[in-house]
């Protein structure tokens, strides 16, 4: 997608990426903990808890640059197709896979889009709760999209990613972030292994919840 851009705009996109990463690190001093996988190249779907708008930025920021190039966050088109700036950042800085959440498109279309991105060699960042978790619960029940994607591409490795503290940095409705230390923990990859929908969603959700227990 980035190839559509002229050279100056590519430089702008690159600078914006550095700026966003610097800002994320300044506010959160984010640290990655690779418990279940190594930060090495390989196609993966990173699935994470979703409590803040900055969630995917944090995952993206802790990925080594080599991995970052091939990772595409899956995000709502309604948000990222908004203003010109958001559109530029969403498409050309993060190279997001933008899906229609408004219900206008058939449900299969979103899974189709993600599968297509996998076929092109990309890794993905997804939030299987489907929406931001603003409740006191640690993790909402998963939507079925994760299962449908696993069913469509059964070879895929699904890596659970727990994001700690970011919801406190920027609670809903606040504009100014409060700097706090954040941690991103990567767990063991999960595969479909022929499971049915309930089993797979339960297993992947538990794998994510396990990472939320404090380790130190």
């Amino acid at each position, binding site marked *: 997608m980035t190839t559509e851009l002229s050279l100056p705009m590519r430089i702008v996109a690159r600078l914006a990426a550095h700026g966003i990463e610097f800002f994320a690190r300044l506010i959160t*001093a984010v*640290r990655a903990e690779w418990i279940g996988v190594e930060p090495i190249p390989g196609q993966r779907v990173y699935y994470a808890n979703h409590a803040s708008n900055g969630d995917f930025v944090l995952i993206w920021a802790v990925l080594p640059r080599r991995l970052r190039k091939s990772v595409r966050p899956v995000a709502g088109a309604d948000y990222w197709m908004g203003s010109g700036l958001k559109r530029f950042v969403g498409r050309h800085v993060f190279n997001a896979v933008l899906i229609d959440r408004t219900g206008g498109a058939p449900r299969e279309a979103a899974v189709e889009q993600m599968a297509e991105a996998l076929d092109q060699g990309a890794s993905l960042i997804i939030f299987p709760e489907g929406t931001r978790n603003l409740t006191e619960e640690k993790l909402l029940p998963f939507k079925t999209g994760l299962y449908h994607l696993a069913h469509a591409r059964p070879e895929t490795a699904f890596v659970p990613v727990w994001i700690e503290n970011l919801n406190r940095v920027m*609670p809903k409705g606040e504009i*100014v972030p*409060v*700097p*706090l*230390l954040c941690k991103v923990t990567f767990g063991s990859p999960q595969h479909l292994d022929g499971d049915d929908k309930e089993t797979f969603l339960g297993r992947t959700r538990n794998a994510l919840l396990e990472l939320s227990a*404090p380790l*130190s």
Partner: protein
Amino acid sequence: MIPDLIYLLASIIGLLIVASVIGAILERTYSPDGENAVIENLNARIRAWWAMVVLIGIAFLAGRAGVVILFALCSFAALREFVTLTNAHRADHWTLAASFFVVIPLQYWLIWAGEYGIYSIFIPVYCFLLGPIVSALRGETRNFLVRVAEVQWALMICVYCASHVPALITLKIEGYEGRGVLLIAFLIVVVQLSDVLQYVWGKLLGRHKIAPKLSPSKTWEGFVGGVASATLIGSALYWLTPFTPLQAGIMAFIIALMGFFGGLVMSAIKRDRGVKDWGHTIEGHGGFIDRLDSVVFSAPIFFHLTRFWWT
């Protein structure tokens, strides 16, 4: 000022070279494949010391603006670690955001401007009153006293006390004009060497723990040895200061003592919150507060003693 500062920085770099050589020999002899955790940690600490000395050296050479900016950034990083461990609620969001983005810049600007009359009361009077007002306006009463007290203590430690390090440069001491940065160097060298020497004496001779519940690594042997050697070193560094050797020794003794108790108090907070380190930003040391805890407790006392008797 410059020749003495260069001389001091050169000695510190010499000390670090010696430490690095010893670290490398220990690693080659006892831990060639990184199997000895103590030696690995020692070498990580020495590497981090290099980075810290380079940063502090640059700040010193840049003078007043340099040290003010360096410690403002330290306050930012320390406050970030402290608030992470508090019960801060969504209702405290504006209080906290203001602490980071208004209080820190303002406090350090006042220090830079040398406004003693304001910077010495800005946080303990104005922030301590205005912060709870902002939090109360959001109407969340659960844990209110705990939340308010935590933010106040965080500001006191991470901003107010830390800002008294660069404040030393603004003291007007007769016959000591333009040498204020050396007073900061004296404080930092004494307090950090005291920490290091307590660690070394403790590792060599440590038998009797002072407060096993608070900090398993603090021993009477380490404490006495560390404070005594830091006092002697401080006395030998009198040429940096406006003090006589005896006065410098007494100051160094007070600095080392306050530094020790600062470490103890900050350990108590860590144990209470069930963490080993304040953060992870400084390889081998933990967080910024792990490195600053002793400095922040000694800085205001050292500042006021010097201000009272020498200005």
